[in-house]
């Protein structure tokens, strides 16, 4: 095998790499087809995004009357939340606390009907059914709170402000092994403790609730989220359904400390009201002597279902294919026309030449994709909300991450395609390969083709993992949800998904450089 003499780098190279970059930029901008296709990719991202948003209408009914859908309920962090529970509470002024003994947690779950028309209800408690004590700013939905609770299957937890969850000790409750729960307020600091005997206490957690008013509501609560069943679709994919459940917590030895005023009041916070004015699946509470029974339906948790703000980015895939074509051609055209030899005469350091090409392509793609994604995302979002969709709100920082992350996905995918082009040296083969590793896995994983598990593995192991950059609503460990790619949830966090894609890009680029160095041009 012949040895190509490696380029020996002058120690101080002024301008050298910068000049190669300028050369590659001139190359890119002087082929009209590439410039037009890039512009087309940007237009496709924007137009398909706006088009899909325009076709997405939502309306809410109140009986036979169509009404504007309410905007989603938001928690203190700005995220969409569910805040529906039964609260037996009193007012507390200043510091104080509550201690209770939870002696039982029972409930019922509606299962799919066996006989049509006949409700199939079984007794039981769903894993994230909650019963415990809470201090909350007010009974207004979405207000600041902290709570210590027993759950159906996840033991004792201390949660606050919807998105935060700390695990205590596991186990359940029964009359024979009750559980003591305590929540104490000192200033803005709330401390949760639990005990199996009311004597030896274990701290579950301590949280700071900024902006908690001097007067708060303190008491016992119960709530139970819908029973989630995910069934395998006939053609792959999955269908998720949630059914009614409720939970009842039995409390006794209730002890309040501090300046507690007024009497016990019951509140069915956030209960759904039917058109006739009656409550739909209401909670309830009962009292006998010092014992309380609280039954609740709902959940206190971040919302993970609903129209998401990344929805208008669905058209990005088509734009991405156009970008892949340009990226591949940027290098394969040189092989096709023998131009690669001229390029290597101008820049004989092959690795640096390919690096200059990749950098120019990556920057151009990023610069094209960033405004296109930003417009599709922002304007598409306005259109979605204008059409009555209760889009789940996300923080400005998350919005920036989605737009910049998707532009980065485009740039990385372009460089990966370029590397494949340099390896395969043929346009069609390289385009097919790039689409097969970047686009196809995402399509397979997010349509009803594959089982959820297989879809998740595809989005962990293939370059398509980078699409995680667009996920706006995170997956919460303490909220049972249908966290599948088909529902918009990626198995990797956004940055990790981009890292996987970047890893493949670096790998392909490295192999392409090695190959370029070893072979005669």
């Amino acid at each position: 095998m012949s040895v190509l003499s490696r380029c020996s780098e002058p120690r101080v190279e002024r301008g050298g790499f910068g000049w190669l970059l300028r050369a590659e930029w001139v190359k890119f901008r002087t082929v009209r087809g590439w410039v037009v296709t890039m512009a087309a990719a940007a237009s496709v991202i924007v137009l398909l995004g706006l088009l899909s948003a325009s076709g997405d209408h939502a309306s809410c009914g109140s009986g036979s009357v169509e009404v504007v859908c309410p905007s989603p309920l938001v928690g203190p962090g700005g995220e969409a939340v569910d805040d529906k529970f039964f609260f037996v509470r009193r007012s507390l002024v200043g510091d104080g606390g509550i201690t209770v003994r939870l002696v039982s947690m029972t409930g019922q779950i509606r299962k799919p009907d066996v006989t049509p028309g006949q409700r199939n209800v079984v007794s039981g408690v769903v894993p994230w059914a909650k019963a415990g004590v809470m201090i909350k700013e007010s009974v207004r939905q979405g207000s600041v709170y902290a709570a210590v609770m027993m759950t159906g299957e996840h033991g004792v937890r201390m949660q606050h402000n919807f998105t935060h969850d700390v695990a205590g000790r596991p186990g359940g409750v029964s009359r024979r092994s009750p559980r003591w729960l305590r929540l104490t307020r000192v200033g803005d600091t709330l401390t949760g403790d639990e005990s199996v005997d009311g004597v030896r206490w274990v701290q579950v957690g301590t949280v700071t609730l900024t902006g908690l008013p001097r007067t708060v509501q303190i008491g016992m609560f119960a709530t139970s989220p819908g029973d989630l069943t995910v069934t395998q679709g006939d053609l792959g994919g999955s269908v998720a359904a949630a059914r009614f459940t409720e939970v009842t917590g039995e409390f006794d030895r209730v002890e309040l400390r501090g300046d507690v005023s007024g009497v016990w009041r019951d509140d069915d916070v956030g209960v759904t009201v039917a058109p006739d004015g009656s409550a739909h699946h209401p909670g309830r509470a009962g009292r006998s002597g010092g014992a309380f029974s609280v039954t609740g339906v709902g959940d206190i948790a971040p919302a993970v279902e609903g129209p998401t703000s990344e929805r208008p980015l669905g058209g990005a895939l088509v734009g991405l294919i156009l970008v892949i074509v340009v990226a591949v051609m940027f290098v394969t055209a040189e092989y096709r026309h023998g131009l690669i030899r001229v390029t290597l005469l101008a820049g004989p350091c092959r690795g640096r030449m390919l690096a200059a090409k990749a950098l120019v392509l990556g920057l151009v793609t990023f610069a094209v994709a960033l405004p296109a994604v930003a417009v599709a995302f922002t304007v598409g979002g306005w259109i979605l909300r204008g059409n009555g969709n209760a889009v789940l709100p996300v923080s400005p920082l998350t919005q920036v991450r989605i737009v910049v992350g998707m532009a980065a996905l485009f740039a990385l995918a372009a460089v990966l395609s370029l590397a494949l082009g340099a390896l395969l040296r043929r346009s069609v083969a390289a385009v097919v390969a790039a689409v097969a590793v970047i686009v196809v896995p995402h399509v397979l994983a997010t349509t009803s083709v594959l089982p959820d598990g297989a879809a998740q593995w595809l989005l962990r192991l293939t370059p398509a993992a980078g699409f995680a950059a667009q996920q706006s609503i995170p997956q919460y460990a303490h909220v049972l949800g249908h966290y599948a790619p088909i529902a918009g949830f990626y198995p990797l966090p956004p940055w990790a998904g981009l890292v996987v894609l970047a890893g493949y890009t670096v790998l392909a680029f490295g192999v392409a450089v090695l190959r370029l160095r070893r072979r005669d041009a």
Partner: protein
Amino acid sequence: MQAIIEVAGLRKRFGRTLALDGMSFTVPPGQVTGFVGPNGAGKSTTMRVILGLDGADEGHALIGGQPYTSLRNPLTHVGALLDAGAFQPGRTARNHLLWLARSQGLGGGRVDEVLRQVGMGSVSRRRVGGFSLGMRQRLGIAVALLGDPPVLMLDEPVNGLDPEGVVWMRGFLRSLAGEGRAVLVSSHLMSELEGTADRLVVVGRGRVIADAGVADLIATASRGRVVVRTAACSEAVSVLGRAGATMVVTDRDTVVVSGLPSERVVAVLNAGGLPFSEVAAHRVTLEQAYMDLTADVVEYRGAAG
């Protein structure tokens, strides 16, 4: 940098074919060096090794004492024309030169200069895809000249040029050498180099078989032979034969004599009383000299042989 190409002991194998078999030669400045040999003799491979495009199994090729790949802004040291078709068809002539200029830190002014120099100023903003082979060849020359390099390597530069273009090219190559540049021009047709090259490196089967000035090469090929034109052809053959000469009768009245200087030939003929119309030193053409040199290394002969 010294305007000189040194090639020493290049050896390269493509599978079972030995493409280069100890290729060694030097291209000095101020001259046009013809690089000739039959197709497949290793001319293009040698040029590609010099330019760092191909690797060699053994040996080295240096430009001004350095391998091509370690030259900074290589196009300002060496200008090369390898393949007249190496263009992106959608790019204009000017833009093709512009990206090359940018890669060497040169400006657009230099681009317009070389375009004028090769006579393409008027078509500079046309796409290369619509160019004739001759125009592409001129653009290729412009690429080679872009960095105003002291060393030029042109692979078959007159290919595809019309007769006017061939004349232009010859004058152009001479003027480049006249400016003190080292110019290496490959060709498989000797006639293209006649009157252009000062020196010839003749190669066959991957090695140099002759490396000399054009005049020396012709003289060597003529090998002191004498042409005798005489009506008494057969008599002349017998008397000269007795005098120790070797002869080839090339025509009814023409004999090419080797082994005797022309004065002895005249004396022998006079002594035999034989009439002759001409006794002259035999001068082979460059083409003939080349044919003689490469006769045993041509790999692909035509059917008529």
